[in-house]
């Protein structure tokens, strides 16, 4: 089996937001909609302060609460773990948005553009199917599927890899098959200490945060 997995190395992320920009460009999301965000978080009190840049977005949970609550089955989970939304089924009730513990879902009720009027690019790429429905990160599922059809390897070949991972300047983001012990993400997880966000909720995200090297005994 394949389980597409993303890792974010918190030691490497510099908060440049290139992944955010890349995602917005690749997926033509409107202003204010960031399927891939990077949080700038500060911890502690002066003088003992730490800062962390934290990429967030849909965690493609193994047990996604957004899918369970969806009254229309618009939210689905593929065999490879990617959680998708069928825009033609979604009624825009936002139930998934309040069920998601990661604030990963967006609903836009009307088209709006960066500078008022739609630019040529925005007009060309506007998708009215996305108005009034829930949207979120898809792990760039179209790129993955198209890449696989060409015999490419997601996470290794850029053409088959999510745009945010391709764009990451510090290799903080990685993508691959978590079920393949030889994959890049499996190797990273094996050699690093990691956690998943809000693990206590039992959603089993497919998104891991690396925070230190694995301790050797």
């Amino acid at each position, binding site marked *: 089996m394949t389980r597409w997995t993303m890792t974010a*190395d*918190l*030691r490497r992320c510099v908060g440049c937001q290139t992944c955010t920009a890349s995602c917005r460009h690749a997926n033509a999301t409107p202003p204010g909609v960031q399927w891939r965000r990077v*949080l700038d*978080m500060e*911890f502690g009190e002066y003088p003992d302060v*730490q800062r*962390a840049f*934290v990429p*967030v977005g849909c965690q493609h949970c193994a047990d996604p*609460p957004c*899918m*369970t*609550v*969806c*009254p*229309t*089955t*618009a939210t689905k989970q593929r065999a490879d773990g990617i959680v998708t939304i069928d825009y033609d*089924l*979604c*009624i*825009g*009730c*936002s*139930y998934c*948005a*309040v*069920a*998601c*513990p*990661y*604030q990963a879902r967006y*609903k836009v*009720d009307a088209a709006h553009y960066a500078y008022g009027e739609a630019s040529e690019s925005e007009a060309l790429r506007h998708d009215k199917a996305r*108005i*009034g*429905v829930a949207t979120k990160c898809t792990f760039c599922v179209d790129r993955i599927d198209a890449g696989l059809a060409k015999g490419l390897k997601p996470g290794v070949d850029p053409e088959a890899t999510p745009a945010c991972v391709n764009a990451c300047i510090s290799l903080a983001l990685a993508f691959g098959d978590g079920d393949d012990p030889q994959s890049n993400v499996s190797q990273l997880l094996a050699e690093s*200490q990691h*956690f998943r*966000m*809000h*693990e206590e*909720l039992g*959603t089993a995200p497919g998104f891991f*945060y690396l*925070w*230190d*090297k694995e301790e050797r005994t």
Partner: protein
Amino acid sequence: MSYGPNPWQQTNWDWRAAGNFVCGGAGGGLIVFAALSGAQGLALAVLLLGGMALVGTGLLCVWLELGRPLRALHVFINPRTSWMTREAFAATLLMPVALAAAASLLPGLQWLAAALALAFVYCQSRMLQAAKGIPAWREPLAVPLMVLTGLAEGGGLCLAARAADDSGQLLVTLAGAVVLARAAVWFAYRRRVAMSVAPRALAAIDSAGRVLQFAGSLLPLALLALAASGVLGAAPALVVVAGLLAAATGAWFKYTLVTRAGFNQGFALARLPVRGVRRS
């Protein structure tokens, strides 16, 4: 150890979603109490139609919330896991049965309507609790609290509507018991969420909870006791006020729970990144 920016109030569900919980719960509760009250004929019909109107208003509210309202029928697709779908099915069954009961088509039909209304209120409660992203909602005690709040609202409205009826002593006892149970469950709920919800969410729960406990529980129960004792005159008026207080404060609490206590849990890091020298 947990870190992260402060949680914030969700904005995906606003007064329209709250309207569904407020009106739907009260309407369902009213239909349940219509059957329990023993009302017959026109009195029963008025209570059932009032409950149906409230449930319908709630569903209208949630329909207004939809981004794609013309696809509303898609809500019926996922009864396997979605409590929203189950709520829709319960409402769809409830409406014709309650209407038939109001028209007295078959004797005892109001009991079937009451069972469906109870199922509807239960589905609503589970719907809220299934929203895992909101700590104040996902608490398991939110289910009995929402069910009892709906029943207390319905009981209160039923009391107000039937205050002048001498045969309502059983109704007064039942409604009083539900109000008392709601008060007890609220205390348990409050204790459970105290450690898990954001401070501002807890403040909202406390604020609406104080109103619920004093104006919605203590005062109505005192008024009902006074009315039953006959110490004061105008017992029906006291019962009307008690019923309306129980209903209005329940509605305010549910509105607050959805629109003011619906804080998410923000983002949290279980560990901070280790860069350079390891911190002790």
